[in-house]
């Protein structure tokens, strides 16, 4: 397609997304004077799971946080280039970052429920956003979407902190779903979970992606291979800035990567 610079997707028609959720063009990002991302150009497709993989410090979490303007909460950061969400530059001066974060939800590495009841954890964001519909129905629907309702239906007034780690993470997903996002960003969502809880989250991701778009950062190569449709491999350059090395259909990236650097990383021979 030729729009992704030196990225190794040129002969991959599957990567020519006509109406991507996000289209990043020549994005550079700095923490103060330290450049964390260099010349990132990438499109994320609708209703697909895209995995960002790469070694620590390659900028994948930074890239993820550029997509909901979460990085702006850190003093001294600077972004250049364009981050278009459904064609609109989310860094334009007239864009409200809070609205961006409502449309683009985030699930973090460590489950972080509010110290409130399960019900309130889900209802809180919707209430803050001015939701005026049937709150009981919204809470139930969100918990069902997050595959948690059956486990907590009789305990909605108990503290969210009383749940197991895996349940807490699904509660956080329910909380995100309650405000009606069309993208969920996941930053190593299973790294603090046991294998069973991890598989539940992965199953959930495959269900959720029918209705929304998911972009997931993971260090777990097998997880990226299991849950994602597309995989982007990032690596820090000599200047320390993270760059895209290869982007393609997950099946292809994990069986037949085009770049030696990708092959070395995913086969554990990196460095």
């Amino acid at each position, binding site marked *: 397609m030729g729009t992704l610079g030196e990225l190794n997707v040129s002969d991959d028609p599957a990567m020519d997304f006509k109406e991507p959720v996000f289209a990043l063009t020549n994005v550079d990002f700095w923490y103060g004077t330290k450049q964390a991302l260099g010349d990132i150009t990438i499109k994320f497709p609708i209703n697909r799971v895209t995995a960002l993989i790469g070694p620590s410090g390659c900028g994948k979490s930074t890239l993820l946080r550029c997509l909901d303007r979460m990085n702006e909460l850190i003093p001294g950061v600077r972004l250049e280039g364009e981050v278009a969400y459904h064609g609109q530059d989310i860094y334009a001066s007239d864009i409200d970052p809070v609205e961006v974060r409502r449309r683009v939800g985030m699930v973090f590495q460590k489950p972080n429920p509010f110290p409130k009841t399960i019900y309130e954890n889900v209802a809180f964001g919707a209430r803050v956003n001015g939701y005026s519909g049937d709150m009981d129905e919204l809470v139930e629907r969100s918990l069902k979407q997050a595959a948690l309702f059956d486990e907590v239906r009789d305990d909605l007034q108990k503290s969210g902190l009383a749940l197991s780690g895996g349940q807490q993470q699904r509660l956080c997903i329910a909380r995100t779903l309650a405000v009606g996002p069309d993208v969920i960003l996941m930053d190593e969502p299973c790294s603090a979970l046991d294998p069973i809880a991890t598989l539940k989250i992965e199953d959930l991701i495959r269900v959720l992606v029918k209705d929304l778009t998911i972009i997931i950062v993971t260090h777990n190569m097998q997880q990226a291979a299991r849950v994602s449709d597309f995989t982007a491999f990032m690596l820090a350059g000599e200047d320390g800035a993270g760059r895209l090395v290869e982007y393609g259909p997950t099946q292809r990236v*994990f*069986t*037949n990567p085009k770049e030696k650097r*990708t092959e070395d990383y995913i*086969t*554990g*021979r990196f460095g």
Partner: protein
Amino acid sequence: MTRTHFDQQLENIQEEMLSLALQVEVAMERSVDALSEGDEALAKQVIEDDVQINEKRYEIEETCLELIATQQPLAGDLRTIASVLHIVVDLERMGDHAEGIARVALMMPDEPPIMSYADIRRMAEITKGMMLASLEAFKDRDTKRAREISDEDDRVDDLYDKVLSELLALMTEDKSKIERATHLTWVAHNLERIADRVTNICERIVYLVDGTIGEMNVSKY
């Protein structure tokens, strides 16, 4: 970061596969010798040795599955293991074809042959050459050579046609030769199938190197 132990295990399964291939090569050669020289003991040896070929195939298969389960191989590592898994099956079946030829050798009466075995020997020679070349191509990851080898299957097919025509003519001319001629058609068929399986190995070499799966030089049989 390195994966020394895993690298050694990957190396081992390829070495074991090549060692299996050499056992099969010996079986192929001996089976045709047993037939053309009427050597009953050699034929029995081939049949006996096939048990070891089968066992080795299962051993390699088991190691490959263990590596998949424990090492979660990806990319080139995965393709290597997948290729070895396929190739050992082809090798084991080639061993079965050699065993089939040895069994025919035991069925042939102790009488002068009904035809010259020159073409059958030629088929065996080309097939063996293809097989040995395919192993070299595997070691060298040489897809160009793999494609050339698979093209040689046409020569084996042509000889197969020739041997079949000759045998059919013999059967038509003299009914007393039908049984022996039929046995020899099995021999030719086994050799033709071995060459087809070498083509399968060549397909796996291409997959191993560039990740594309596709059929090469489809045999007319």
